[in-house]
């Protein structure tokens, strides 16, 4: 099996894909206790599209996101950001890739508590020693309703505000792709709805690429496309989803 994959992985998956995996396999543990978190997953995330990854607990959806975002490494197979194969990068190169080309929104603890909202937003730029586009950052902050909160520290902000700061940070450097891991998981429905609206807006208005892991059908229905995972494999996909259709599909996992 390995040689054929190698032949295929010489080339980037497709020009239009912002990120992709080929034969992605992730095994935790060894021998009899080995768990296949990802089992030969081949998937592409198109540019300027909002893709959601869904699946039951333990389906490997978070693992897929982490591996394609350069936070974790695959056991075998390849993961790509644009035409860069992540497996070829060392820790520093991977870090620089995350800094320059990827944006992140996590479920919680997105922000550095000692930095103000503004400093958190510009953190990836500051780490790169860059100033960034001031007008753009101002625009992002205003759009996200953070203009008045820029000098505040995370401890002085609500959970929704903190998540919006995280979204602003992800957008600030105009990355090729933003990965969001349950971005609304810790928020009430109103705050969660706001965050999703901003993500949607970023795709529609700015042509941003977003990949989001969620278990909430309502959140997933904001996406252009949903990839369903179960037992570490891609089992289905859905275009132009609605909350009802997603719910129906999810129910079938219980069967």
């Amino acid at each position, binding site marked *: 099996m390995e040689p054929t994959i190698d032949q295929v992985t010489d080339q980037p998956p497709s020009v239009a894909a912002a990120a992709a995996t080929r034969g992605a396999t992730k095994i935790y543990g060894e021998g009899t206790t080995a768990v296949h978190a990802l089992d030969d997953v081949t998937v592409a995330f198109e540019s300027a599209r909002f893709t959601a990854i869904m699946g039951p607990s333990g389906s490997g959806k978070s693992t897929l996101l982490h591996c394609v975002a350069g*936070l974790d490494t695959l056991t075998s197979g390849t993961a790509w950001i644009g035409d860069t194969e992540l497996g070829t990068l060392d*820790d520093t190169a991977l870090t620089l890739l995350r800094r320059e080309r990827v944006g*992140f929104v996590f479920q919680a*603890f997105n922000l550095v508590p000692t930095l103000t909202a503004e400093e958190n937003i510009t953190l990836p730029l500051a780490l790169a020693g860059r100033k960034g586009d001031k007008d753009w950052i101002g625009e992002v902050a205003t759009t996200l309703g953070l203009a008045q909160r820029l000098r505040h520290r995370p401890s002085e902000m609500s959970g929704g505000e903190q998540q919006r700061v995280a979204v602003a940070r992800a957008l600030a450097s105009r990355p090729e792709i933003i990965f969001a891991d349950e971005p609304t998981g810790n928020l009430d429905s109103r705050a969660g709805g706001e965050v999703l609206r901003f993500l949607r807006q970023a795709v529609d208005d700015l042509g941003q690429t977003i990949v989001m892991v969620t278990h909430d059908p309502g959140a997933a229905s904001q996406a252009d496309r949903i990839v369903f995972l179960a037992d570490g494999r891609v089992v289905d996909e859905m275009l132009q989803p609605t909350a009802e259709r997603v719910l129906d599909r999810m129910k079938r996992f219980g069967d």
Partner: protein
Amino acid sequence: MLLTAIRNLLAHKLRLLTTGLAVMIGVAFMAGTLVLTDTIQKTFDDLFTDAFENTDALVRAEASFDDPNGFGELRGRIDASLLDEVEDVDGVALAAGDVWGFAQAVDRDGDPIGNPGAGSPTFGTNWTASELNTWTLVEGDPPRGDEQVVFDKGTADDGGFGVGDQATVLVQGAPLEVTVSGIARIGGADSPGGASFTMFTTEAAQRYVGEVGKFDSISIAAEDGVSQDEVVERIAPTLPDGIEVVTGATVTEENQDALREGLSFFNTFMLVFAVVALLVGGFIIFNTFFITVAQRTRENALLRAIGATRRQVLAAVLIEALAIGLIASALGLVAGIPLAAGLKALLAGFGFEIPAGGIVLATGSAVLAFSAGVIVTVLAAVSPSRKAGKVPPVAAMRDVAVGSTGYGSRQRIIVGVLILVLGAAALLYGLFGDPGSALAVVGLGVLLVFFGVSVLGRTVALPLSRVIGLPLPRVRGIAGQLARENAMRNPKRTAATASALMIGVGLVSFITIFAASTKASFSNTVDEAFTGDFIATSGQMGVGGVSPEFTERVNDLPEIEAAGGIRAGLAAIDGDSESLIGASPEAFEIFDVGPVAGTPDDLDETSIAVSEQTADDEGLAVGDRVTVDFTSTGEQDMTVAMVYAENAAAGNWILGLDAFEANYPDQMDVQVFVRKAEGVPSAEALAAVEEVADDFPGVSVLDQTEYKEEQMAFVDQMLGLVYALLALAIIIALLGIGNTLALSIVERTRELGVLRAVGMTRSQLRSAIRWESVIIAVQGALLGLIIGLFFGWALVTALEDEGLNTFAVPFTSLVVVVVLAALAGVVAAVLPARRASRLDVLRAVVTE
């Protein structure tokens, strides 16, 4: 709860190790010091026992007065004619006169063997041909005639002498050419206590190292069946006034006690550093426990929620501390034994040779070091354990923000200021006032000052970190900014960590300032008072010295205008033991002591000069009479003939040469001041003096600069030793910084994960942690520096009357101290930074 405490310990082995290490080093230091002194004591106890093995009684002069330097009692010599009388006493089997004095062998290169000024003494004595002599010849024969000597094996080996070899021996008068007739050992030692022995015939010993017709003592062996007490009882009635007889057991004990007393100073000196090390260790325990208690808030709340009482939670923390204290102290005790050898080598490296063989650890010493470690550890954990006990059960349900403490309350600031003021007051009172036990008061003051500053540390930590870190964001970008913010985010923790370093740096800067002031003061004194060109010395403080023959010959040189020596002696003046100097008229001429009443010419055989300082204290003026008790001539009425200002170099009492020669049997110059004749080039004059010096081994000729250096060499020597001893306290403080950083990193796992996820490289992360460490270290160094400046100023000002006329602040050295502290901060951060940078990004981000 015991189980919880033990589980906690085992769950955090690394922390246990670093925390325990801080205590362990302190205990090891203390144990090492005690082992060293116990060993020295044992060595000498055995030595004295061996030396007096066959002596049942000793006849000697009654004590005149105590040695002002704390080395037992001083007594005069006795008439040799007493020997015959004592021998005739019924029950006396053998009696032999003993002669003791200074003699020092010279090795083949012309360098004197041993350094009696800063190490074991070099004795000249007589070889007794009877069983009273406990030496055993290993080679050769006893000395015969004036020019034969027996060396102890140690000296013979050092000098490379064998039987029949020629050797030069420094004694009073001109150096002596002798033949080695034999080599001897005593009680299994080559060179007892590291001392050097040159043994002459009794007549030669009297002539060269003692006094003709005198003995220092008479050793007596009793006939079989006559006890020590009996023989003493029989001899006592036959003795004239002023002469006493004691048992051999008493003499052994006296010698052992005198040594114990001498050692106690050394012991205290070393223990001060051990206590400092332990104190710093205590700070680290305190800090570590505070952090871990905060990190375990939830856990403790859970325990409370399920029914643990406040006391039980508190006890669990204390038990954990007790366990650390017990383990670390036990390990420290064991580590102390090799450390004793290390300390001995360290002292030797700085020129303090300590004779000691084997390893002795007295039970009392072991208990002391062990319990000190345990007590410090448990005491340091008391406050954190109370905090743990106060955690409300409901905290288990809350998401507790870890380690966010602020400035400290107003009460805290008031308490801190009070402690600080009290400490400063105690320090100043101890130095300037006249309390009974000045040293204890000063010590308490020093402790309180450190404690007060560390209490206030929390309040100053935030602004101080802000200021120290000011340039960082500019220089190091976001990593620098994060470093600064992190140092500022928990002022309490930063302050407590910095405090540990503050103590070491405070003492280092204090001693640096004190040493610089001592040197500057001496240099000023020499510049003002010394009008000569050269100084000849034997390089030995107050022991042995330069033969007066040298001075005479230099005086006769045409290139030289004047040469005058000074001698050193001890006496009791109006009942107080004092050091005094005997100065020749030429010495007064070249070294201006600044007479304020009378002149050096007024000093005759029955007069004495006193420093203005002492004259004021004692209410003395020219014409007043004082009683001076000399060991060899007894009490003498003397008139104060001169009062002088300069006591920094000259001391408080001076005799004219006539008076000195009249009252002291030994006549050796410790220093000879030389002034060249006008018009003679310096080099020429120096060459002429050096040519004379060539005939006197051990004598070196120095110019003014070299003289200052030589006289102040001991300051650098002490400084180096103190630095080395304080280094341990500083190493412990660095462990503390590393420990705090490591604990902080555990707390910040998630935030570090975010940083790494959004693009912070490993090296950026390491840099942030490194600079945080530097901020903490520099903070500790700066606080220490301020305290050191205060201590230095206080002590120098207090000692102004003793001749410390200059308060010198060695800026370069102090800057170096701060820079070194910053570098040390970098070193302390190496391991925590590496650990942080290896953090698994993913796990850190998703950690619950």
